[in-house]
């Protein structure tokens, strides 16, 4: 079977799934991965595991693909005259919030909007310049008595901006970080369903990456992979984002290089990409990568890791922009690499 990637991605974007509250998006990923795998389960911390068995003799060596499915968002901290005060889940620049459309997940879902009160209602230091998070409000369009009935402190709030198709095969929307990587894993499983592969493939849609890599620290304990590939978004070049940390949009994936990455594994996947003409850029990661790879590497007695990056503009805003070509490239690179893995691959990796 072949999964149509754009509808799959948009379906994931339509579902909430804030860190710790991943259930709605997990159901959508499960529906897609169930068709492409042999076993499916959910970890104690909410990550989705799908096993696609290899053709090798039991027990096969195992590779784990980890793409976090959780989203950044907001949580209600108070209600004032029908307006909601809130805090953040994950890293959010308060400057992007005024005027953002959201969904308040109360006793029922309410459409809402983040609003910035006029200066005279705020302390002097907050009125001009940037209104920090505590000064912003959510407007639901309902009268105060109705809001009091439907919303409670602790309700989560997700971004609601509909994704926008842009010229040149790009998509803009919220939570493309990191649903595009989940889509890339789906694409990989889809290709592998028509290929022979000796290794067992464990696809993981991990939980709570944005608040401390919870899923990535825990799933490898159950799966015990021989090595792992983390897939996440990286910075695409755009206004204000042009230094060495940013990569051109639509010109290929990145392969991270640095202490979180096993150098011999890097050489192997880079060789595969070169052989198949899948464009990539080496992404210098001199310190921590801030991705699932950072956690997975140090689980138990250690796991060799790779990190594939999909360039994305305007990260952690509701208009994150990605090129679908790069998403497919990430999926294809993983599938090609995995299907070519010999059973004794780990024994051939050498420190040099």
């Amino acid at each position, binding site marked *: 079977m072949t999964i149509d990637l754009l509808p799959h991605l948009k379906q994931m974007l339509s579902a909430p799934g804030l860190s710790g509250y991943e259930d709605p998006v997990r159901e959508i990923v499960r529906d897609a991965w169930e068709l492409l795998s042999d076993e499916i389960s959910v970890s104690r911390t909410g990550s989705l595991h799908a096993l696609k068995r290899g053709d090798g003799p039991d027990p096969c060596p195992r590779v784990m693909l980890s793409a976090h499915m959780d989203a950044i968002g907001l949580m209600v901290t108070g209600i004032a005259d029908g307006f909601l005060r809130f805090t953040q889940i994950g890293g959010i620049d308060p*400057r992007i919030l005024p*005027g953002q459309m959201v969904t308040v997940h109360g006793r029922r879902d309410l459409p809402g909007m983040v609003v910035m009160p006029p200066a005279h209602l705020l302390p002097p230091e907050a009125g001009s310049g940037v209104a920090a998070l505590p000064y912003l409000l959510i407007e639901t369009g309902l009268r105060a008595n109705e809001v009091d009935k439907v919303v409670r402190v602790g309700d989560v709030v997700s971004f609601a901006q509909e994704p926008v198709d842009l*010229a040149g095969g790009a998509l803009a929307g919220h939570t493309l970080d990191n649903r595009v990587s989940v889509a890339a894993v789906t694409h990989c499983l889809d290709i592998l369903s028509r290929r022979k592969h000796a290794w067992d493939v464990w696809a993981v849609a991990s939980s709570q990456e944005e608040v401390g890599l919870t899923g990535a620290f825990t799933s490898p304990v159950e799966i015990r992979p021989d090595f792992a590939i983390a897939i996440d978004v990286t910075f695409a070049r755009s206004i*204000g*984002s042009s230094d060495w940390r940013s990569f051109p949009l639509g010109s290929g994936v990145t392969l991270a290089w640095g202490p979180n990455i096993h150098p011999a594994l890097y050489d192997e996947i880079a060789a595969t990409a070169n052989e198949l003409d899948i464009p990539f850029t080496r992404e210098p990661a001199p310190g921590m990568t801030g991705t699932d790879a950072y956690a997975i590497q140090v689980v138990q007695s250690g796991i060799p890791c790779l990190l594939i990056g999909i360039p994305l503009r*305007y990260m952690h805003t509701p*208009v994150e*922009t990605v090129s679908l070509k790069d998403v497919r490239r990430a999926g294809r690179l993983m599938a090609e690499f995995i299907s070519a893995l010999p059973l004794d691959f780990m024994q051939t990796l050498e420190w040099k």
Partner: protein
Amino acid sequence: MSPNQKRTPNSRQRIGKRQTDLLASLCNALSVSGDEQEVREIVLREVKPICQSVKVDALGNVLATRIGSGADRVRVMIAAHMDEVGFMLTQDEGDGLYGFSIVGGIDERQLVGKPVIVGREHIPGVIGAKAIHLTTPDERKTALKVEQLRIDLGPGGAGLANVGDRAGFATRYTEIGPSIRAKALDNRLGVVNLIELLRSAPENIDLLAAFTVQEEVGLRGARTAAYHFNPQIGIAVDSTPANDLPAYDEDDENTRYNTRLDHGPAIYLMDGATIADRRLAEWLMTSAEAEGIPYQIRQPNPGGTDAGAIHKTRAGVPSISVSVPQRYCHTAAGLIRKSDWENTLRLLGAALSRLDSKILTPLEA
């Protein structure tokens, strides 16, 4: 007029599907000051069948006249501006990225992270922001300026748009419970209200309807429209901020709200551009009270409407403004109550039916 006069049919005007559908199509249209064609086309389609004369003047105003049948008719000009605040592309930087300027008054802090539409084709784009991961804490305390932002049409966007094209927020009209959320409610509400008033104009007046251009950049259309019509009375129908949010400090009461939702149409006594004619204010308030229509006085403070230009035209035109209160004017999405809109239309309809030129005789001291 007597407060005991029987209620006029116009005071029973209701907001139904026809009105909300029209408002939705008007709000979803893009009509930035100086390029009002999309809204002008909708207005012409709506008013041509119901007016004796319709013309488009040198600036692009739509000037429509509906003549009454009574004797001693009052010549009333009502103005509703068709334009909205928005953007103009100013620089093509290649790769689908365009620099832009703001047209009218938009707080720069409202720009970041929004989808936009560009040009007559409504080409989709976004205004992005640097990833939080690449910012410093100090940077995050400094508001982004329009010069630091770009409209991004995507990697295939090179050559899709032209310098000079207008752009606006991509927000779509939505009804939420008792409220309506949309861009450009300032002043598509006025445009719908004026079209509705033309439909049901009473016979005791000549209704001189000016759908004006360039209000947001200096009340420019209203000036020439008022000259053309030479009316006895001028009324601007618009939308005005409702700053009725809670104060951050819970011990503070918000006493500077300008207007409040759920309190009915806002009648102006004074703004930054006009001191409203006292006789007209009296007429509107008396009409509202006689018909049992709620209203509020807009707190006198800066701001302005087309009345600012109309009242100084020719030898002077007694003028006033009536607005629908709206939260979050001049942002990606404003919010109104349907009931306030309905009561605004009811008030205007009822007051026009009760209008007689005697109200223009000098007031007693």
